[in-house]
């Protein structure tokens, strides 16, 4: 038997204020040498807890039962010193957020050597040579000088490479990668996935991949374990699972994953319905420039640089870009949260350059805003009904929350929440429900423009599908124009009439969805599209090849 990891009937219980909570309930799985096994599941499914158990990283409040065999060692029964012995040599971990997994006050070379020093005697020179060697293997250019760099001198993707290098340096039999690409942009994600594949091929390391992204699973995994609420509901090879999911939950999960190319039909239909009416656009941006002021003596940071676009009444513009591309900044500028520094931005006929808050306030009743994080966009001390009534009270359409209740109930009904939810507090709602309530609040004044800033990126896929569907329905019913901001091309494709692609603060491509996604002109859009993993292992293998060709052509 050459299983590097064998988990047998694992059960993990956490002590919480509300009593004991079972996070992992009877999980059994095995990882063979050189195999990539993915654990997929939505938040709360227990996948991360399972991963942490393998390294003995659970907090004191957790009690684990069962067996986690790493080679011959049962991790659960090991004491501190023995546990330290196997960490790094037998099993290593790659964390989700590379910027917090590295210590900012030490050079990366020192941090790689730290792992070596913990498990044997290395002279400074040997450790350094080894660190350089491993950095080269994970694809850091010019490792001889980069070994002395500090983490902040690397980009996010490179940082993740360094974290992988740290995990690899002792050549462990198993790497546990907990959402290794979630914090990264799609183009960088594709590179890191490539690296992980190479790690498996060249080092023969088995990888236990924890993720919620079905595209990543399709790209990398040999075998897939689907977890739901602490239980394994299905286990199959990747090809088998994506082709013929057995469990109803897996089927539902796969059906919820947004896919590219589903939206162009709908967009065309909507465009034909709208033909002929050429009302004045609600938003006109011309050479829009937004700069964040720099520190004394330094020039500011130009987040948005000469962007021009328009949004017509009733139209949904999808704004796509990676982190730092300025997409959120544009959304905030339209909502009057960020001042613009140059060019021109007209929102509902008001020029935003140098506008005073007092002059803009009446316009706000015509603009709705949906925020990214449903957890923090509600005042925790107000009930949902009170929160939804706020815009009505502020704009004097209602005297207080009680007199606005009829309207609030209508709104809740419009977003398909039961009326009774109005009396609940935000923390008593799930993420998807909260995001619906957020939609209800933004629609309370029947705005003609809605800005949605990554409204679904904090949600699980199955919930995301619901919220997107609802958004489309509401848009059809209320007929508002919308700016839909997202980093996910597939999500934007589902909703948007036109898509604008941002790259480093500049608009590189804009046009109808079918054109931008079907026949992208700009090389960045092409790369972005090719990097997006699709939830189908066979198709993804082809796309990977296409991306490689595209990269070589660069």
């Amino acid at each position, binding site marked *: 038997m050459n299983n590097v990891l064998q988990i047998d009937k694992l059960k993990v219980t956490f*002590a*919480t204020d509300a009593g004991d*909570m079972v996070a992992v309930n009877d999980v059994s799985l095995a990882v063979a040498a050189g195999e990539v096994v993915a654990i997929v599941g*939505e938040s709360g499914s227990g996948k991360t807890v399972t991963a942490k158990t393998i390294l003995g990283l659970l907090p004191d409040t957790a009690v684990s039962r069962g067996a986690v065999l790493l080679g011959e060692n049962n991790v659960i029964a090991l004491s501190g010193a023995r546990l330290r012995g196997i960490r790094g040599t037998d099993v290593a971990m790659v964390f989700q957020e590379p910027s917090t997994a590295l210590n900012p006050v030490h050079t990366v070379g020192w941090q790689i050597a730290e792992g070596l020093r913990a498990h044997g005697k290395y002279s400074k020179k040997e450790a350094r040579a080894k660190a350089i060697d491993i950095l080269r293997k994970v694809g850091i250019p010019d490792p001889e000088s980069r070994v002395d760099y500090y983490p902040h001198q690397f980009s996010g993707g490179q940082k993740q490479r360094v974290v992988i290098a740290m995990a690899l340096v002792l050549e462990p039999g198993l790497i546990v990668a907990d959402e290794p690409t979630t914090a990264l942009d799609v183009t960088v994600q594709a590179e890191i996935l490539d690296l992980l594949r190479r790690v498996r091929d060249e080092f023969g390391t088995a990888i236990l991949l924890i993720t919620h992204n079905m595209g990543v699973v399709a790209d990398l995994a040999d075998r897939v374990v689907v977890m*739901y*609420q602490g239980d394994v509901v299905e286990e199959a090879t990747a090809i088998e699972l994506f082709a013929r999911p057995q469990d109803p939950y897996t089927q539902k999960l796969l059906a919820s994953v947004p896919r590219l190319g589903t939206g162009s039909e709908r967009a065309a239909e909507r465009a034909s319905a709208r033909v002929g009416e050429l009302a004045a656009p609600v938003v006109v941006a011309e050479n829009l420039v937004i700069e964040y002021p720099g520190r004394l003596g330094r020039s500011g940071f130009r987040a948005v640089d000469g962007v021009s676009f328009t949004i017509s009444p009733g139209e949904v513009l999808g704004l796509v870009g990676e982190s730092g591309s300025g997409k959120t900044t544009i959304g905030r500028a339209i909502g009057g949260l960020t001042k613009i520094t140059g060019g021109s931005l007209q929102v509902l006929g008001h020029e935003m350059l140098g506008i005073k808050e007092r002059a803009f306030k009446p316009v*706000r009743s015509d603009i709705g805003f949906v925020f990214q994080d449903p957890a*923090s*966009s509600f005042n925790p001390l107000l009930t949902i009904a009170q929160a939804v009534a706020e815009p009505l009270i502020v704009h004097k359409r209602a005297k207080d929350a009680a007199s606005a209740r009829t309207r609030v109930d209508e709104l809740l009904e419009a977003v398909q929440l039961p009326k009774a939810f109005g009396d609940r507090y935000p923390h008593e709602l799930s993420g998807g429900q909260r995001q619906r309530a957020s939609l209800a609040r933004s629609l309370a004044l029947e705005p003609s423009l809605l800005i949605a800033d990554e409204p679904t990126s904090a949600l699980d896929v199955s919930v995301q599908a619901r919220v997107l569907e609802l958004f489309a329905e509401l848009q059809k019913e209320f007929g508002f124009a919308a700016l839909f901001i997202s980093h996910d091309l597939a999500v934007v494709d589902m909703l948007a009439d036109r898509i604008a692609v941002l790259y480093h603060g500049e608009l590189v491509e804009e046009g109808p969805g079918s054109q931008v996604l079907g026949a992208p002109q700009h090389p960045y859009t092409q790369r972005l599209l090719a990097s997006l993993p699709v939830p189908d292992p066979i198709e993804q293998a082809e796309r990977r090849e296409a991306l490689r060709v595209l990269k070589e052509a660069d």
Partner: protein
Amino acid sequence: MSLATPAKPAVWKRLPVVHQLRQSVGLQRGMLVAGLVITGIFIFVAIFAPLLAPYGYSTLRDEDGTFGAQQPPGGKHLLGTTVGGYDVLSRVLWGAQTALSVIVVAVLLSIFIGVLLGLISGYIGGWLDRVIIVIADAVYAFPTLLLAIVAAIAISGGQSSLWGGVFAAAVSITVVFIPQYLRVIRAETVRIKAEAYVESAKVIGSGTGRIMFRHVLRNATRTLPLIFTLNSSEAILTLAGLGFLGFGIEPTSAAEWGYDLNKSISDVTSGIWWTSVFPGLAIVLVVLGITLVGESLNDLADPRLRTKRRADGGPSTTAETTVVPGGSLDDVPSIEALEGRV
């Protein structure tokens, strides 16, 4: 986060201190209970001092004549008498009343000004914030006791009365406490200002005042009970310090532990222990009790510091109320109902 909302506990169980008491376990609970018991006794004694004390705080004689100075404990005077001829037990019990009134006045005076300034300073920011913070820092850098002495002289004008003394101590404490409340509320306000719900209030067009009081203030006051308790113990120490230095309340106006300690200095060397030990013990116990409550509240407020009952790994009663949006596995076919689509 859980979908199945647990039934709300009764109102009294959600009251600030009661809630924490129910939440605590082990050593933390022990600390909190000890603190609460000591503080409870202190407040009880302060309120019922006129009934509990055998004599008045300034009583020097009864029908049998004067008490006599420095009488050892026993007989008519359970804890003996002081060098001035007062009954020690009565002085200690009455002293609780003075201490409590100083706490109440000091905290009431400082909390409103401090919170309001902190809110304005944190939310509006800019030059106003900088000016307020500079002043607060300057006050903070000033020695508390020195400030208290100046305030004591200015307020009492050399006259000693109960409320003159109480207000002298309270005002001087207030001046020092305002920066503390200001700092804490300001930090919270700055944090909350960046929360999405404040921004969402802004985008719907709420005015500054409405945002400050409806959305920021109520969320910023969570740490107040904590500073409140810690400041209370500091207030007692300042009052005692003032009395010890001779700027406190004369024995004819009120009983004051610091004053009694001051007068007992010379007794210590001549083997008369009861005049200093009991007032000293009273100060230590009350400060300890209030600090225990404060520190426990602090630890319990932070989930990382809060100890929890250890999970027994056995069958759980809350297994079905998980954090998963969508409900338990059995509910998959009816996920619509859980997402509220019915």
